[in-house]
């Protein structure tokens, strides 16, 4: 079904890469470094999403009947031509490379970096030899991406009252990546975003401390967090949004340090625009990033105003450039929600007291107010949460929890040290500095996470990253004083932390090698007969798990799934024929199966992982 489209999907992925290389190559020349890398990848992902946003707007306006991969590839070609035109207007880079010699890194640090890199390599190997995972990813991020792929439309997903009708920049990318025909590739945008988060944390640390080694160690803390590594290769979107939020901050603080030799004013405007674009991509990822983006914009506005005599353009122009960049990558979602529901923030209900201004779901309907009690047994335990790393439903780390040994050993102490050092010990200079601003932002974000984001660990990823930046002061102290004990402690925590974190992927890889279960059905644990169904088969999922929505889409992701949530209590022929259902897949609940119409024929009954699955073929009642 998708064989012909795969080439267009690949083109839609590669053409923006070419556009990004042309644009950034013109700006940064041969400059190689964290800033050039961050700018290149952010530009690539932005240009990759731009054709989809443009196509989405045209579809909303009724000017585009279907968003096929061919259309997206064509739009990407237009973006390529436009990028070339824009690049020609940039002053040519003189070809300079930052030739200032960088001191070599000590062996203990190189060893620590190698351990963390090996951990990432193991996760990469696991992803390449398996299929996408993560509960939220399988329950709705990936089904959403596949739904767009199947319907060739960015219209509201499936049913307009679906509470997961969220902004979905990451899923847009997933739909392109799944179109290549290689499911594991769906994590590529997440992987790229994860590398951007690492380079952005490094850039922020490098601005925060003059000690390069301290900046690298602080970055290593972030890269070794299990939740970060799991999300980098998974199907959750929190790290994706966090990465762009961090990139927006990093590019902004380097707005006065062109990566190449382009004029300061040109770079300033380009950096502000790109920072805004990255912020918009975060906003368009998930509503949990709205408050973070608001804080970031407030900080940038305050900084721009206080430095108004030192910036090369006016305050209004600077802030307007940021806002335009942001709107380009998130406005589609708000316009789409307005068109379908009249509420730009749908599915979030807007109300004052009991008066509902714009209809939708309350945040309590979307996320249980007591969901944080999955991570602590009582809220008084939150201060010690990093040391217990608890999750009620999972014994090991996962995509939604896990700070890990390395982070916990150093960063809480590092944050406390930064607070004391910057605010109490270091009295001079007495005026506020960027470091004070970073501490203030950290405190505000911590309050936002506690009161507005329901204390979900993964919703706090930007705060966790900023904690690493603040702890650079502590590492500066250790490194400057050449503490040998610190070196051993760092190596011990990194190696033990990586070993614990590596258990899950190593276990999965070993399991597949031992059982030979490389197929999709064996990997996910569903009846293999599902993969033999013809294209566009519609399946009613009665397996009591939204996660199975994705499993049942089959090997070529061509099956249409009707979720159990949308089925009536009693399944009758009217419902089955009304929804064009071809097959029903069910699992036992409370030790019994559901009662189905007698016209359904049992196709397969299979016991998988101690659970009995039944697959029924729906035969129309009047077929006889």
């Amino acid at each position: 079904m998708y064989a012909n489209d795969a080439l267009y999907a690949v083109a839609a992925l590669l053409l923006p890469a070419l556009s990004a290389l042309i644009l950034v190559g013109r700006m940064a020349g041969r400059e190689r470094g964290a800033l050039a890398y961050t700018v290149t990848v952010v530009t690539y992902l932005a240009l990759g999403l731009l054709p989809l946003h443009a196509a989405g707007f045209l579809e909303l306006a009724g000017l585009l009947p279907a968003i096929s991969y061919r259309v997206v590839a064509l739009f990407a070609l237009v973006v390529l031509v436009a990028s070339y035109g824009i690049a020609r207007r940039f002053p040519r880079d003189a070809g300079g490379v930052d030739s200032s010699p960088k001191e070599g890194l000590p062996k203990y640090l190189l060893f620590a970096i190698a351990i963390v890199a090996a951990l990432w390599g193991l996760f990469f190997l696991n992803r390449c030899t398996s299929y996408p995972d993560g509960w939220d990813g399988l329950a709705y991020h990936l089904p959403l991406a596949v739904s767009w792929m199947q319907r060739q439309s960015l219209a509201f997903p499936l049913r307009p009252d679906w509470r997961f009708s969220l902004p979905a920049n990451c899923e847009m990318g997933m739909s392109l990546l799944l179109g290549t025909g290689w499911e594991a590739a769906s994590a590529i945008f997440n992987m790229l975003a994860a590398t951007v988060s690492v380079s952005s944390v490094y850039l922020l640390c490098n601005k925060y401390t003059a000690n390069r080694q301290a900046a690298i160690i602080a970055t290593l803390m972030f890269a070794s967090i299990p939740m970060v590594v799991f999300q980098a290769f998974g199907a959750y979107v929190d790290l994706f949004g966090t990465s762009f939020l961090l990139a927006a901050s990093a590019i902004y603080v380097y707005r006065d340090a062109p990566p190449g030799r382009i004029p300061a004013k040109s770079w300033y405007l380009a950096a502000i625009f790109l920072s805004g674009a990255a912020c918009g991509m975060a906003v368009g990822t998930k509503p949990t990033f709205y408050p973070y983006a608001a804080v970031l914009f407030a900080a940038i506005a305050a900084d721009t105003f206080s430095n108004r005599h030192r910036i090369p353009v006016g305050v209004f122009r600077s802030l307007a450039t940021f806002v335009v960049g942001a709107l380009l990558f998130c406005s589609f979602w708000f316009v789409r929600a307005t068109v379908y529901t009249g509420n730009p923030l749908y599915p979030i209900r807007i109300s004052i007291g009991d008066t509902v201004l714009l209809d939708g779901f309350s945040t309590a309907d979307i996320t249980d107010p007591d969901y944080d009690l999955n991570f602590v047994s009582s809220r008084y335990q939150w201060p010690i949460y990093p040391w217990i790393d608890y999750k009620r439903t999972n014994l090991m780390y996962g995509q939604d929890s896990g700070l890990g040994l390395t982070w916990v050993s150093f960063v809480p102490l590092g944050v406390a040290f930064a607070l004391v050092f910057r605010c109490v010990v270091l009295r001079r200079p007495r005026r506020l500095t960027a470091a004070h601003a970073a501490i203030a932002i950290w405190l505000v974000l911590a309050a936002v996470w506690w009161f507005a984001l329901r204390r979900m660990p993964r919703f706090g990823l930007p705060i966790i990253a900023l904690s690493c930046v603040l702890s650079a002061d502590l590492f500066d102290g250790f490194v400057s004083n050449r503490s040998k004990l610190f070196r051993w402690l760092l190596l011990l925590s990194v190696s033990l932390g990586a070993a614990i974190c590596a258990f899950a992927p190593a276990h999965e890889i070993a399991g597949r090698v031992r059982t030979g279960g490389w197929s999709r059905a064996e990997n996910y644990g569903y009846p293999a007969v599902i993969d033999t169904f013809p294209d566009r088969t519609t399946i009613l999922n009665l397996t009591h798990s939204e996660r199975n929505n994705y499993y049942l889409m089959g090997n070529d992701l061509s099956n249409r799934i009707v979720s159990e949530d949308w089925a009536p209590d009693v399944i009758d022929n009217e419902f089955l024929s009304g929804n064009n259902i071809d097959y029903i897949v069910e699992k036992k609940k409370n030790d019994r199966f559901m009662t189905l119409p007698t016209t359904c024929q049992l196709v397969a009954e299979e016991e998988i992982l101690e659970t009995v699955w039944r697959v029924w073929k729906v035969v129309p009642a009047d077929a006889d």
Partner: protein
Amino acid sequence: MSKPNDLTRSQMTVEHPSIEDRTDVSPVLSPRLLAVLNALVLTSLVCYLAFSRPTRYLMDEFVRLFEKFLT
């Protein structure tokens, strides 16, 4: 001729407020404070190993495997 607000790169970078207060940590840390900080890191590390759910789970798994191996 440059416009009044058209700053050069060097003018902009030198004036950045986050630069001048970046290298003040080292003198603050006396050997005694350094030892205390290292001790706190070690305590944090040991506490995680002792109390965190993942490490306790892994320890249980290894004990189970070891017992299986012995029998």
